[in-house]
């Protein structure tokens, strides 16, 4: 096969390796989104031939996604919305002295999920492409709503508290401009709110600040001594990985399906994978307190989105998210205009790209495996010095989000909120997911209502049964969970 021959040049491997390495570095710095990095690197890739330039970008993409898990696990600082699902268990594992296990599980789960979904993509290009078009606004709205409900019922506390948090998330997300009409909403004339509440400063405030506070509480000037170093711990054992096998399979399946739908995104996959894993687990109480299975679930789902997401891009020219939009630019610049004819005209190239994705998974495994022990050791640093570094990374992340120093105020606000919620035992996950998804949810609901014109119910029942099915199944699950919770309380 010419495609295999095209990929098997050593130069491609080098390009991918460099891409992966840079990607991990980029992903490791909170606030430096992979999208930004790819956009910056893009023109450099124009000057090399496509079969070197594109695999380089793909390597960067994959490296970046894994890279984001590193600060999430080690210092509870999220790089993107998707990393939040990893923060639920990562830092707890580090505290228990299992930091290295956590990182390795994240790596292996990510690579497994990614590779599996890439293989699926290779085999099922045609049906995936057809499926991509099936999800219109009503289906999107239903799925997004379902994801939020799933996260609520999978919380560590009662679903009531989860529902309250989800509503808070939605309310906060509505501040700013409404997505349909661009009118101002709940800004009360304040400039700082005009763009809405910024996501990354909020996430860093909710998760990194309480972690910083924890380090501060251990400080030398208070306790009079340097706290005992946290051991990075032993590596992941094969047994532990095998035990997470079913979870990884489930998450991969879920992530692949979510990946096919353009615009769904990694947060939905990560949170849904986590929620479903918790529901199915024999040890659900571990989730949120340092469960390797939780990490596996979130990371596998997260990464399983990547392969299928390229399908609508390659076959229809429709990008699934910001990163694929940039990749679209790269394809175009290399003379490959995605669209229905791409597969016919440049079949071997497409195949080669998909093979490059598999290659980058392999190289990611190798490179990250080498880096992990070193990186895990970083957290054993004296907290008196680690805390200022966390501060630098957190502040930087906040600023990089949208080049606005006033976002630091949001950092403070949500820092307080995060500490308070944690103490009051209110789960942050439903709030975060609801906040992230609210815009898409509201948009889809608005589009649906427009499409339905007069009779919403008729429209859904007659024209879009898929959406109804999703809504009914999720309501069924929620009801069943709610009733069983009630039964166990009484």
């Amino acid at each position, binding site marked *: 096969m010419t495609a295999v021959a095209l990929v098997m040049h050593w130069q491609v491997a080098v390009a991918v390796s460099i891409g992966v390495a840079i990607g991990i570095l980029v992903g490791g710095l909170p606030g430096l989104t992979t999208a930004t990095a790819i956009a910056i690197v893009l023109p450099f890739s124009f000057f090399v031939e496509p079969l070197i330039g594109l695999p380089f970008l793909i390597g960067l993409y994959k490296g970046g996604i894994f890279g984001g898990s590193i600060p999430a696990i080690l210092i509870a600082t999220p790089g993107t919305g998707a990393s939040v699902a990893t923060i639920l268990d990562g830092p707890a594992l580090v505290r228990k002295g299992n930091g290295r296990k956590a990182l390795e599980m994240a790596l292996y789960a990510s690579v497994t999920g990614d590779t599996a979904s890439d293989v699926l993509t290779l085999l099922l290009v045609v049906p995936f492409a057809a499926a991509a078009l099936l999800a219109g606004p009503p289906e999107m709205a239903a799925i997004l709503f379902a994801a939020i409900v799933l996260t609520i019922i999978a919380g560590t506390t*009662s679903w009531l508290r989860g529902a309250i948090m989800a509503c808070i998330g939605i*309310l906060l997300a509505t501040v700013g401009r409404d997505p349909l009409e661009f009118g101002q909403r709940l800004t009360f004339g304040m400039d700082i709110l005009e763009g809405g509440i910024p996501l990354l400063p909020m996430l860093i405030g909710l998760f990194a600040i309480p972690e910083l506070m924890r380090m501060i509480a251990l400080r030398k000037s208070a306790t009079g001594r340097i706290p005992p170093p946290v051991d990075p711990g032993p590596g992941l054992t094969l047994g532990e990985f095998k035990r997470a096998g079913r979870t990884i399979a489930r998450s991969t399946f879920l992530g692949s399906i979510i990946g096919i739908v353009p615009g769904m995104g990694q947060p939905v996959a990560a949170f849904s994978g986590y929620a479903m894993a918790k529901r199915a687990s024999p040890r659900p109480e571990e989730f949120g307190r340092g469960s390797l299975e939780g990490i596996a679930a979130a990371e596998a789902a997260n990464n399983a989105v990547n392969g299928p997401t390229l399908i609508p891009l390659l076959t229809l020219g429709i990008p699934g998210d910001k990163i694929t939009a940039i990749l679209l630019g790269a394809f175009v610049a290399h003379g490959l205009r995605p669209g229905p004819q791409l597969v016919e005209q440049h079949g071997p190239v497409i195949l080669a790209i998909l093979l490059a994705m598999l290659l980058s998974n392999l190289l990611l495994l190798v490179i990250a495996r080498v880096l992990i022990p070193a990186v895990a050791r970083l957290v054993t640093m004296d907290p008196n010095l680690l805390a200022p570094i966390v501060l630098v990374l957190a502040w930087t992340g906040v600023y990089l989000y949208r080049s606005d120093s006033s976002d630091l105020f949001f950092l403070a606000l949500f820092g307080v909120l995060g500490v308070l919620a944690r103490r009051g035992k*209110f789960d942050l996950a439903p709030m975060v997911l609801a906040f992230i998804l609210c815009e898409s949810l509201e948009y889809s609901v608005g589009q649906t209502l427009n499409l339905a014109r007069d009779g919403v119910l008729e429209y859904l029942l007659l024209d879009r049964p898929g959406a109804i099915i999703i809504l009914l199944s999720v309501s069924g699950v929620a009801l069943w969970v709610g009733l069983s919770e009630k039964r166990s309380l009484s």
Partner: protein
Amino acid sequence: MLNPACLFLILVTTFAAATLAALPWAVDSPQPLFGSLVSVLSPGTFPAAAALGILVFSVIEWVRRSRDGEAEESSLQPALERRGMVVVILLVALSALSFDSLGYVLTLMLASAALAIFMGCRSPVQLVIVCAGTPTLIYWVLTRVFTIYLPAPG
């Protein structure tokens, strides 16, 4: 001593109620096109629904708590942690103010140094390497290699 869960609920319900009350004034009404509105979904619907949801669920939760009782709740932060919280908030606020005038590097050097000193670090060597070095390194990598904008003094 107010326990944190109660405090959180009260905070949240007040916020929701206030939003609900202010909603008619706080939302721009959309412009009609050719005499009718373009969107069927009104901008006020989602915020109203969310705020209402908060109120309803909070009330139910409150009732449930007073009926079932809640296991021991820790009181709000021992004194030492409160101090830590104040320091962090103060550092964030001051950083926000000085970011654009002092620039990225200076602000972060000062903020991280302040934190390090507060934590008990006394060695000037460590301070210079960590608190001066880290922001500088990040600044150079981001602005020179990645051509990303970071504020410089002035």
